[in-house]
């Protein structure tokens, strides 16, 4: 049991080493995020009211788009260098690897974003009482995106030709998520029920993800 916990910690240590040296990817993402916000401000004009009305939607879309930016790194590098295989031989089932990878994607890729959301709120004139709801929905949403990303990135291992397809699949599945989360911020009365729906989606995805990703990784290893 103790050894098991140690394994998990060590996995995250490894991911940390991997992602930190690729820190420029995270930076690229964040820069993309802010530049896009600027683009919108310039194209709308600094009219405060429309801006704060649209702000949440814009932030959501940007979150989604930039998490598709990092899809390629999700499994590809480790797969190509056979490191997924080595991890597996150290007693982690592919399903377990998928879970850990998803969590580490959330920690190392999504969280830097979540941190920058309050700043985005300031720039976009979102009122501060909404920030709490916003953050909660974003945390749930980005966990969902991590799960979707894991599934589609593992599917992309089987498909060396068309890597955008993974992004497209993630995006079409995230449409309902976006609809719900936007609803959360606009209709404040039904906050709890909508959050519950989001949590429901998250739970479903979180339990489907290991099996789907694990199966894909296994198949990819057999074919390569």
């Amino acid at each position, binding site marked *: 049991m103790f050894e098991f916990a140690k394994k998990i910690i060590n996995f995250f240590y*490894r991911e940390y080493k*991997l992602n930190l*040296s690729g820190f420029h990817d995270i930076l690229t993402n964040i820069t993309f995020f802010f530049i896009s916000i600027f683009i919108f401000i310039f194209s709308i004009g600094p009219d405060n009211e429309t801006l704060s009305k649209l702000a949440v939607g814009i932030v959501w879309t940007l979150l989604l788009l930039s998490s598709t930016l990092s899809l390629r790194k999700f499994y590809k590098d480790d797969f190509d260098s*056979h490191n997924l295989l080595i991890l597996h031989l150290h007693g982690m089932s592919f399903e377990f690897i998928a879970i850990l990878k998803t969590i580490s994607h959330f920690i190392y890729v999504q969280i830097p974003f979540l941190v920058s959301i309050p700043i985005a709120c300031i720039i976009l004139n979102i009122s501060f009482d909404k920030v709490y709801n916003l953050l909660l929905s974003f945390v749930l949403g980005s966990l969902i995106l991590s799960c979707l990303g894991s599934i589609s990135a593992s599917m992309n291992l089987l498909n060396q030709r068309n890597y955008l397809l993974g992004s497209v699949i993630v995006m079409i599945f995230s449409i309902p998520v976006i609809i719900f989360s936007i609803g959360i911020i606009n209709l404040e009365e039904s906050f709890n029920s909508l959050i519950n729906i989001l949590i429901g989606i998250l739970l479903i995805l979180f339990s489907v993800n290991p099996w789907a990703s694990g199966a894909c990784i296994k198949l990819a*290893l057999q074919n390569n």
Partner: protein
Amino acid sequence: MLILQNVSLNRLNTKIFENISFTLGSGRVLILKGKNGSGKTSLIKTILYLLEPSSGSIYWKGKILPKTIYDFYNNITYIGDRPTSLKQLTIEENIKIWKKISISKIDYEKIRNVLTILKLNNYKNKKVSTLSLGEIKKLELLRLIIENKKYWLLDEPFTNLDLDSIDIIRQTFEEHCKNEGSVLFSSHQDIKFSKYEEIKL
């Protein structure tokens, strides 16, 4: 003890090999030989059960394999035919990661000794991407020492190595066998061991 019984493998509907049987017990060196494309790498992957044999069965400690797979994994070190070290990190960082991943209890002194023997000690803080091919291969082989398992499965461990290093590795294998370990590897080169068996593919 690992036993293969009449194992055959198909990939994409073509037969790769057929009716391979052998036993890998402790203290033995098995060498896989065969032409390019004869299926050495595939056989090793089949032993690891990454590829499912199309017929025949593999036994580990008397039980049929997929059942006791994690116990099996717990007793082997596999070093494949392509480098797995992380290129953007230094040798030392890679070793640290491997130590953590395999929860190895080996002390750092011993690793340093091995590094010195392999003439890698001066490059400890060099990134893997700036090493020569042979140096990378030697770094890979270090995993054998770090993980400290009983069964070693290796795919072409001697490529890119110079004659001195080949001899060091050979001696390591022999020593491992004396300590009841066992080694299975594929190679195109003729390496002389005091006691070994060949499997022709």
